[in-house]
Each structure stands twice: as C-alpha cells, then as structure tokens.
C-alpha cells in the first residue's frame, strides 16, 4: 500500500505550499532521511524530508505547483506499485505549461469549463498532473463556481504584505489632511499607522501642505481614440516619408500688434466689438504670402508636382484628446474679417466635435501656432499633401539692433517653416518666409 505524502504544515500560518524543486524523480529509490523536495511556505523555503524507505512512485504536484496543506503531493511505496490517483486542485497546477507559458487571464477564467488547447495539435501532451485521461483535449474539469487561480506561482504573502495597514481613523485624518499614507511610518501593532502617526507627520509639515495641493502622479492606460489613431498614422507617414527641411525667421511684431490694437479699437469705437486675434492676421498674411509665392502652395503627387489653383488654408486646433486641422477654403479670396470669422466658427465646431470630414480635408498649406503657450519657436510636421507647415511662436521682448544701430527693446516673433524638399527647395521656402514677414512687418501689404 503506497504511502501518500501530503503537503506539510511547516509554519503556524501556512495554508498552502509551493513545490520549489523536486530533488527526487518518479521511480527513484528513497530512504528515511532523504530530502524529497523543497517546499516554499509563506515564510521560507524548507526541505521535505522522507520518513519512509521505498520508491517515489508518483509526483502529484510538479515543480512550481502549489497545494494546500494536507493535500497529496507524492506517493512512496514498493517498486512497481501503482500509486493512487488524485483529483488535482487548481492550486496544484504547475507554474508553466510547456505549450502555453503565459496563459491569458481570459483563459484562466474559462478553465473551469473546457478550454481549447492553444496549439492546433490536439494531441499535444497534456500535463501529467491532469488526471482525466479520457478527455485528452480538455483540461481537468473542475466543479463550476470553484475559484480558479492563475497558475503562475505567486508569493502567498505578497498581497497581505503590500496592504498598507492603517486604522480607519488614521485613514480618515490622512485623507482630510491630504497626507499620503504610504509616506507615514506606522507605530502601531504590525506597523499599523494610527492617528498619532498621521498627526506627527502633519506636525513635521514635510509632507502635509505640499502633498495636500499636489496630487500624486497617476499611472493610467488610455485606449487610443480614433482621432489619436489618425494623428499617429498620418504624422508617422509624414515624418518618415517626407524629407523635411526647416528654415526660421525672426520678425518684428510691433507693427502687427499696433495694427491689431488699432483695428480692434476701431471696431469697438463704432459699436461692432470684434477682436481679431494675432492668429487671424497670420492666417491672412500666410494666404497673401502663398499668393505671392505659389510654389509653396503645392503638393507632391509622385510623378508630378501639383501647384494648386486655390489656397485652402488649414490651421491646427488643439483639443483635449488630440489635434484637428480645419480648412479655410479659398483663403486668397477672403478678407481678414471673413478669415477671422470662418476660423472662429471652425474652432468652435472643432471644440464641440462637429467638424465634418470635408471641413478637415483638402488643405494646401497649414499654419500652426504655439505662441499662446509661450513657445519661442518650433517646427511642425508637414500635414500631407501640403508642401509646408508654418509654425508660429510667441511674441517676446528682446534686445534688437535698429536701423540706426541702436539696441532697443523689440517685440519679436519667430516663424518656423517645415518644407517638403521633394516639392520645394530652400529658396522657395525662404521666399515664402520673406513674403510672409513683409506682410506681417508691414501689415498694410496683406490688405493689398
């Protein structure tokens, strides 16, 4: 009669053990005093000593497998004797299955039913611990409703040791004071954080006030929205397929700001309050510059360069979850007010997510502006099929040398231009920037 060795209770708190390593194999001769296996408890790894003489007939819990205390882990008996079979509990499953090293959680959920084998080979050897040989394609059928655990061995104590011990009162005070519990050292039993610990932490002030206003960093996973997916795809294509080159020009923004102020004042004075933004002027100036340098208003079409007969001016609008580029059509035909109104309308639509696909397509050039964020200068990624993108920085006071070679305080704005070198060369880009800066530095030119 074989002797069944059960998972020993090696500590007073041990409820289950993991077989870390079998030191004997099935069929090996064993003697009283031999070490059969190493068992990991919630506290330590200990040796499982053999108290019988005989042969290791059967290993029920393979290396890496877990079993609750008192459950059979192996059988020892006479040579050639048949070991009894045992229903293997889910905990007893091995750490890794050869065919399927990392079962997904979904699979684990279904384990109680009848999981399909991952590989197509239905005769793939099933684990020895699965005793229902009559149904080789199915895993051991556990009673429904029995909790199943992911088979990977976990340190049994991990969850309990990670649980932050704090009294309900301490938790409440910490929350009220905005003190994160994990920075407080507990003085209570088992290191429990109690009221006095929280008050002491508050007293020290190191954590309290600052932590109260600065929220802890949050780690989160955000699924990709459709808009994000489009942005990612298009910009990756652009940056990897279009040979970008970059030029930059700093301009004097004083005249532009003066004109803007004057026009806004005029509208106000005559009872039609309307405020043009700096960006409105830049859009208008860009449209005029494109009319002056039509080579910039073009697209690479593989076997031809398409210089467009109209200026369809896209501009970037930042949204909470992305960026859209609505298009002002035939911008060359529109005056400042028309451009401004249309831009405003498109921005509103963009923010309320009401832009139609038509309103976001067919651009011939794009303007992007980070001036409002205090950016000096930057270079946008070209919005295909445009040949260029204008990147507008903010207006800053800077020392400049004026016409009389005096150093004065100037209001300066930096314009960046990214160009598709397949379509335009540096000279075209430079000409465009020159025309643009003329329009902005001598604003009357943009109204011609």
């Amino acid at each position, binding site marked *: 009669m074989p002797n069944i060795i059960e998972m020993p209770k090696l500590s007073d708190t041990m409820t289950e053990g993991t077989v870390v390593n079998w030191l004997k194999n099935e069929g090996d001769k064993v003697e009283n005093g031999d070490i059969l296996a190493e068992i990991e408890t919630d506290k330590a790894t200990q040796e499982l000593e053999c108290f019988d003489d005989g042969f290791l007939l059967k290993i029920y819990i393979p290396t890496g497998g877990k079993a609750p205390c008192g459950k059979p882990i192996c059988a020892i008996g006479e040579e050639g004797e048949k070991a009894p079979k045992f229903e293997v509990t889910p905990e007893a499953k091995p750490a890794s299955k050869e065919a399927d090293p990392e079962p997904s959680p979904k699979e684990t959920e279904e384990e109680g039913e009848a999981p399909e084998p991952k590989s197509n080979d239905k005769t793939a050897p099933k684990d020895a611990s699965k005793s229902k040989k009559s149904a080789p394609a199915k895993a051991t059928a556990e009673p429904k409703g029995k909790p199943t655990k992911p088979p990977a061995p976990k340190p049994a104590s991990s969850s309990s040791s990670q649980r932050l011990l704090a*009294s*309900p*009162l301490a938790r*409440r005070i910490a929350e009220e004071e905005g003190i994160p519990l994990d920075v407080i050292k507990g003085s*209570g039993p088992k290191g429990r954080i*109690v*009221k006095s610990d929280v008050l002491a932490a508050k007293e020290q002030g190191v954590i309290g006030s600052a932590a109260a206003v600065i929220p802890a960093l949050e780690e989160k996973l955000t699924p990709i929205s459709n808009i994000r997916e489009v942005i990612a795809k298009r910009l990756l294509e652009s940056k990897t397929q279009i040979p970008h080159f970059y030029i930059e020009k700093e301009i004097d923004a004083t005249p532009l700001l003066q004109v803007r102020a004057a026009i806004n004042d005029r509208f106000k004075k005559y009872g039609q309050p309307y405020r043009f933004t700096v960006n409105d002027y830049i859009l208008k100036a860009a449209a005029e510059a494109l009319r002056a340098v039509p080579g910039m208003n073009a697209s690479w079409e593989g076997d031809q360069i398409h210089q467009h007969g109209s200026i369809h001016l896209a501009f970037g609008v930042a949204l909470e979850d992305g960026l859209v580029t609505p298009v002002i059509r035939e911008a060359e035909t529109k005056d400042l007010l028309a451009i401004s109104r249309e831009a405003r309308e498109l921005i509103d639509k963009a923010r309320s997510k009401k832009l139609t696909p038509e309103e976001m397509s067919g651009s011939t050039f794009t303007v992007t502006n980070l001036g409002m964020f205090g950016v000096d200068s930057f270079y946008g990624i070209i919005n295909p099929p445009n040949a260029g993108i204008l990147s507008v920085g903010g207006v800053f006071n800077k020392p400049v040398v004026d016409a009389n070679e005096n150093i004065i305080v100037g209001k300066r704005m930096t314009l960046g231009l990214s160009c598709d070198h397949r379509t335009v060369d540096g000279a075209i880009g430079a000409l465009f920037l020159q025309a643009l800066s003329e329009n902005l530095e001598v604003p009357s030119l943009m109204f011609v």
Partner: protein
Amino acid sequence: MPVITYRDAINQALAEELQRDPNVLIMGEEVGQYKGAYKVTRGLLDQFGPDRVLDTPISEAGFTGLGIGAAMMGLRPVVEFMFWSFCYVAFDQVFNNAANIRYMSGGLINIPIVFRGPANGGTNVGATHSHTPENFAANTPGLKVICPATPYDAKGLMKSAIRDNDPVFVMENTVLYGNKGEVPEEDYVIPMGVAEVKRAGTDISLIAHGRCVILCLEAAKALADEHGINAEVVDIRSIRPLDEETILESVRKTNRAVLVEENKPFCGVDAQISHIIQDKAFDYLDAPIKRVSSIDAPQIYSMPLEKLQIPSVERIIETVLEIT
C-alpha cells in the same frame, strides 16, 4: 447619604415597591421563610405577609408560568431565580411566553413581570450554576435586560423594572451582593436604556456591564497609575434597550474600545456592541475593537482555573496595552 450593600439596595427597592403598589408581589424558591438563598428578600415576609411574599416549590416551569399568568391578570410579580441558570428549566415560559404574549395578543395583554436573581460565575458553583444568559435574553425581542453594577444602580433600575409594563430580566451578581455604595433614602428610579460613564477618560473606552464594570474601574486606575493611560469606563447598565449613543460618543472621543463582559465570547453581548461600533463609528477607530470575555468553555469547577476563566483586572490591562 447612607452607604449600604448591593443586596440591601435591592431589598430596599423591593420593599419600597411592595409598599407603593399593592399589585407587586414576590415569589420564588425560599424567598420567604428562608429570606432568599442570598438573603436579598430578608424581612419582606415579615413586613408584607404570605400573600405578597410567596415561597414556591422547586419548580421553575410552574412558578414562572404562574407569575406570567398573574401578570396577564394585572399583578406585578417579581420572580426570583435562585440562579439565573435555573431559568433554563422554565425556558418556554420565560423566553417564549413572557416575551411574546403582548405581541401575540395584538398589544392587549401586558406582562408586567420582573425575573431577577444572580447570573455570574466566579464562585466555584460549577458549570450548571454559573450561566450569564443576558446575551440570549437580549437576543429575544420583547424582553428587557438589565445588569446593574453598583448598589445605587441596582436599586434605581430594580424600581424601574418593577414599574415597567413588559418583562424585565434583572441579572444580579452574587459577588457584588456584599459591595457597598451610597444609596439615597428618597425614592428614585434609573430609566432603562441609559448608560453611564462611570469614569471619564480620553485614551480608551472600557465598555462593560455588571461586575465587569467594577473590574474596569480598577483596571482604569491601574492604567492611569502605572501606564499613564487615561481610560474611560462606560457602564451600559441596560443591555436591552441599549444606549448606543453613549457608547459611540465615548469611542468617538477615545478612538479605542475594549469591551468587557463575563459572557462567553461567542455571540456574547459585546459581539453586538462591537458590531455597532464598527458600523457607526468606523472612521473614529484607531485600533481594532478588543474584547475581554470568559474563556470559551463550560464553567470550570476548579476555583483557581475559574478565576482565570472569567475576566480579571490583569486581563483587561493586558488587552488595553495591546492596542494603546
């Protein structure tokens, strides 16, 4: 104010109520000629005569039923159990009939009866004479349960119990009978359902009933003298109705509670109080609620072991120190 024993305080309450209300009567084993097994009814037979103070046969099921019937007819019997352990003989009468008749009669029939007697261990009388059934009495809707700890409370609560129109179980304690305390001569009652803070403190609430209140007061003194811990002692006095608010107020103040009772721990009164505290004062707890109860076994006959079985000052102090 006169200082009298707990025994005499109850005796006074009985005498005064016999005097005040001709419907009040005393009945039980040896309550008359023998003056009560613990002499609580001493002098009452002489003063009020055999119509008001009745010696009954040794037949709890019979005389409790007699008492309940008398109560149904409008008398106000005070029935003595020599030990509360003996109420088990009359379980159906006491826990079934007395508790339910008012409800079953649609409120037409009241049972203005008092069952009283000692319910305690610690006196080497063995497993069948040492029961503390206040927990399952309080578990029975329709019954009121009081456990006075001091002579003053014993008299005031006993008078309330006799004047109440529902069955009231008064659980006394043979160890307390000789304890002395100030008791006013004038008529007074202590309403049921009102706890009393017997000692104000700031660091921990010791919540108890019956003799354990006295142990808690001693423990509180030792905690203050030897450990600098300022314990508050709440005497709940009345198990049902229970004064939850005084308990909760104390725990909200001290943030810690040790519940002390002579009941066996499993389903004891303090199991319920512990639930109430965690339910209604969870965010005020700075430590787990601890309990000191009798050790969960039939009452041990060996005197030295029984002293270890029931709550002691040492055990209370030890438990307090675990969470302070």
